């Protein structure tokens, strides 16, 4: 009996499904299908100057789906379908938006207020954090081993965050060479980039200037992580730094990361032993293995090179402006 019922069901007339493909003009010309109606009667949101530059094309809205399926007159007469010449729905304005308060009449405005606030805040609000120690490494150099770190943490929502950055280095036997910490307000300025502004404090031997910081950080095309900042010191000196790195996955867990950093200054700063122009570059190539995403030991090479007047100052002081090193370290975040 049930078999029969299913068979009867299956025997019911089925309208053929419309093909999903769009209707090409030559097809339309042959009467095989009809072109989708011009999408929107509203003025095209593609300004002519844009279109002229090839940035966009007119009629930008997605076309309406093909009109409803072929409806033979005998079907239509039986009320099974409507003829296909159904006009597209008009672009009527929406009614004015009311207050979201329907449940107030049932449960009382007071009872609803807190849960409604929470509903809105919970879906899309919220604050998060991340501490990323990108590099904590030992540097094996010709005779003078040392260490270095570079870490960044953020706390906040999707748009505005407090960002703390720190980096520094030192020699195993010699003195701590110097480090810095930055406290920045980070603000999303687009899908990929944050503008960052705040202060930087250097510490270590010698002068420890304080800087005002203005920078950007984000993800560039081709998956390059990039960062750039200008620093204005409390003495009025202006310098800058640009960094870029790239993660090349060799396997799902083995990742090769080339990285380059360039420092420059707009004036010489004798007490910091830097000249004007490019002061130093640092290039690195690190191979890490992600035991977990959050925990990855690595090995690699890093090469620091002082440039221009800064290099001359270093040489005059008996330092080698070029410092290659083998590195081994840990990338860890949580």
């Amino acid at each position, binding site marked *: 009996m049930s078999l029969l019922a299913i068979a009867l069901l299956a025997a019911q007339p089925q309208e053929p499904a419309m093909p999903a493909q769009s209707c090409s003009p030559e097809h339309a010309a042959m009467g095989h299908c009809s072109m989708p109606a011009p999408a929107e009667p509203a003025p095209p*949101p593609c300004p002519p100057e844009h279109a002229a530059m090839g940035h966009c094309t007119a009629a930008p809205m*997605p076309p309406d789906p093909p009109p409803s399926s072929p409806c033979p007159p005998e079907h239509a007469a039986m*009320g099974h379908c*409507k003829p296909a010449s159904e006009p597209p*729905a008009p672009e009527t304005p929406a009614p004015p938006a009311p207050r979201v308060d*329907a449940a107030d009449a049932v449960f009382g405005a007071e009872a609803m207020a807190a849960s409604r606030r929470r509903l809105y805040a919970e879906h*899309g609000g919220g604050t998060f954090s991340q501490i990323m120690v990108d590099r904590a490494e030992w540097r094996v150099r010709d005779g003078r081993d040392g260490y270095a770190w570079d870490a960044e943490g953020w706390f906040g929502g999707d748009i505005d965050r407090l960002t703390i950055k720190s980096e520094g280095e030192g020699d195993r036997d010699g003195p701590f060479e110097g480090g810095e910490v930055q406290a920045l307000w980070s603000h999303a300025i687009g*899908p990929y980039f944050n503008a960052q502004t705040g202060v930087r404090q250097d510490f270590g031997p010698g002068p420890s200037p304080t800087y005002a910081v203005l920078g950007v950080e984000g993800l560039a095309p081709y998956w390059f992580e990039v960062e750039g900042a200008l620093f204005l010191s409390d003495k009025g000196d202006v310098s800058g730094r640009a960094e870029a790195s790239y993660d090349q996955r060799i396997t799902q867990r083995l990742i090769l990361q080339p990285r380059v950093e360039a420092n420059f200054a707009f004036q010489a700063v004798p007490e910091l032993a830097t000249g004007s122009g490019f002061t130093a570059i640092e290039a690195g190539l690190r191979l890490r293995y992600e035991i977990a995403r959050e925990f990855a030991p690595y090995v690699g090479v890093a090469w620091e090179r002082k440039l221009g007047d800064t290099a001359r100052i270093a040489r005059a002081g008996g330092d080698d402006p070029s410092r290659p090193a083998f590195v081994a370290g840990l990338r860890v975040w949580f």
Partner: protein
Amino acid sequence: MSARLDRRSLLFAGGAAALFPWLPAWAQPVSAGLPAVGGDDIRLTIARQMLHVDGKMRHAIGINGTVPGPLVRLKEGQTARIHVTNELDEDSSIHWHGLILPFQMDGVPGLSFPGIAPGKTFTYEFPVRQAGTYWYHSHSGLQEQLGHYGPLVIDPAGDDPAPHDREHVVVLSDFSALHPHVIFKKLKQMGGYFNRQKQTLADLLSGEGQPLGERAAWGAMRMDPTDISDVTGSTYSYLVNGHGPADNWTALFAPGERVRLRFVNASAMTTFNVRIPGLKMTVVQADGQDVRPVPVDELQIAVAETYDVIVSPEDRAYTLVGESVDRSGMARATLAPRAGMAAPVPPLRPRPLATMKDMGMGGMDHGAMGHAPSEGGAKMDHRMRDLSLAPTVADTPTVQSISPMPMDRTGEPGQGLEDVPGALTYRDLAALHRNPDTRAPTRRMHIHLTGNMERYMWAFDGVKLNEVKEPIPFTQGERVRVTLVNDTMMAHPIHLHGHFFELVTGKGDHAPRKHTVNVQPGGTVTFDLTADAYGDWAFHCHLLYHMHAGMMQVVTVRPEEAA
């Protein structure tokens, strides 16, 4: 608790062989199914519990002591009275997914009602005006991920248009040992955290995946073609009725029977491709609504959708495969005439890669559309976020891309099934009964699905719910044609509470009616909605972490004079 056991419920219990005497009856993996509750007065209790998954104990939230919760079985025409007690130490709720009911019974804290405080009981009471397979789940925080969901079946008042000799409810879900707040935090820290199937140098050298030039072009756009699922089998176990693949939940049948499988995708984040190798499935219901029977070999079931299929198995065992869409894992069960049987489990198929179509460049192949078919990478990059193409979308960091040429993809079976013969598409579905409202729509609107995988931000029209100033208003009784435009590279199952809508797929007045529709990446879906239910209704992406990230809005339905 007064549990009304009908013939079908007894059939469930009949197959419960005590294979695992140390497990309670509901946890027996053979055909036990879930306990059923029904009748005029139903009691459900939400509480923390432990869950066995493939031999491991996990912290979970269950209902009446089970994960998923018990099968709530109602009868069309009755009045449902369901007392829900919250024994958690935080607010909770139950939303009856797909049920047409007064808004104050819909179960969304902050919209329908204030929620259920710890230790309190809320009584839901509503007339049952429909039949079919549905489900229920928490709408509070991220509780759903922890197991707070269950199936709901309404028997029709009249004859069942798809008669069967036996039925099994098959609740598919995803479960992680990680706390859902940890999962969400990881996604915020690193959008691709759970993706362990990215392209690598090794697979480039072995000739797999995209060739170098294509990888460069996608890199230029900062788009990852392996980004199919946000949360994957790297942390999830995929469950059938609360059982992991190794648990091998087994549904029994007698050879010659027509077996109805009621599939419910109660996952937080997982789209499943469902198949039973060697067995044709005839789809008879989608989202609880009867459809003209469609025989298929495989179907994609998005989060929150339900499909009922009828199968006629022979005297042998079959494996029921629910492969996650990114092929990072599978839910597995067995269909067998006797306990203890198993069929071969097919290996996971290679993961799909997103295509240009998934980036909303579907029409690019068609030079006829008047667009230059070939574009340089740099120019394409510029076009990936041309907000002039979507004037209703706000220019916010939530918008990573705008689909330049989105196309209607309802004729496609979904990601990874392009080359699978016999896979269901939305265009295969036609309502069995004439649609209740066949008026032409008097208004149309577009809603864009937008997101940013790098920041893990998701929203409608670029505005997250926490930033939203106004709801989406409808006048009660009006019929509106709504087009959803997916500006992201992921599929989004979009759910509107309190209503069914008719998909515009060329089926005239037999359009398939749904409560949740999956909008393919870079695709569009158009539906006609009769906004007939007064109140405030949730409208959201049913991927739990997308909703939590802000991909949600409020739909208001008000009488004309009040509007």
